[in-house]
């Protein structure tokens, strides 16, 4: 009986302690509208009264400045890889300043992609489309960049639809 009373008291104590802790915690976060002074807030985020007390909202002005700085740096990096003047024999103006930053691709990857595109094109023009061609096409397709992949898909689709590829695959051609 004594044991039962002891266990009961422990359980009650834990329950009351947990409840008290929860109440204190929630009072601390919702009790005041301005929990931190603005001087304490980081540059980009600040705590302001909103629908959810204590929620951090983004300082739009600071975010704009940060994005502008990042974009300027990215454009400068992309621009540095381009020649300052157009190569001889090429007409047109210099590199456009509004050109988006391009993916930096290593020469090795470029070569791999070029090779994959050549192989994909060869598959599409060889006239027969079996399981082997389908598998090979899928493998090469995954190596191409989005623009090359679109070109390859377009070639494939038009070849299938025009009947210039004879399909012998088990199931769909792709």
């Amino acid at each position, binding site marked *: 009986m004594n044991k039962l009373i002891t266990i009961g008291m422990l359980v009650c104590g834990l329950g009351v302690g947990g409840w008290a802790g929860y109440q204190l915690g929630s009072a601390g976060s919702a009790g005041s509208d301005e929990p931190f002074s603005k001087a304490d807030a980081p540059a980009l985020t600040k705590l302001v009264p909103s629908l959810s007390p204590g929620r951090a909202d983004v300082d739009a002005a600071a975010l704009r400045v940060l994005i502008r700085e990042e974009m300027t740096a990215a454009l400068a990096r992309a621009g540095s890889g381009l020649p300052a003047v157009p190569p001889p024999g090429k007409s047109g103006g210099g590199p456009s300043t509004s050109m988006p930053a391009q993916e930096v691709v290593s020469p090795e990857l470029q070569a791999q992609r070029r090779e994959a595109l050549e192989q994909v094109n060869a598959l599409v023009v060889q006239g027969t489309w079996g399981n082997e061609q389908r598998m090979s096409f899928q493998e090469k397709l995954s190596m191409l960049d*989005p623009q090359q992949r679109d070109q390859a898909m*377009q070639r494939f*689709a038009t070849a299938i*639809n025009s*009947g210039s590829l004879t399909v012998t695959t088990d*199931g*769909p*051609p*792709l």
Partner: protein
Amino acid sequence: MKKLTIVLSIATAFALQSVAFAGPHFNAFVSVSKGSTSSSAYGSLSSARYYSSDSQQYIGCSSAADLVSSIYISCTARDAQGNYLYCYSNNADGQARQAVASVNNTSSVYFQVNNSTGKCTYISVSNLSSNL
């Protein structure tokens, strides 16, 4: 007398079996139509798979993603004569992707393709009990 009862029971069971499959069924065998600028295909999965007498026709759609920039959807059809039609899209919106994802064995699929690009210009998926 016992035999008669058994035979009658079996006959009744067979008769009632048709009640379990009530409701209409409409066949939509795969048809591929090729035009000068665009082509189209139509058919139901169930008709192609279970109700056709040839071993040629099928129709369906699939989706794929390169995990970087694009989600691809494509639809394929082959009719009983072996004519293929294929289309793809690398910029399908959420609705088109949802339509493709909803294809199942109650579906009939219609799609159109631009002949010069191979891209899907229209995809329709209807899920109906009458396709089963």
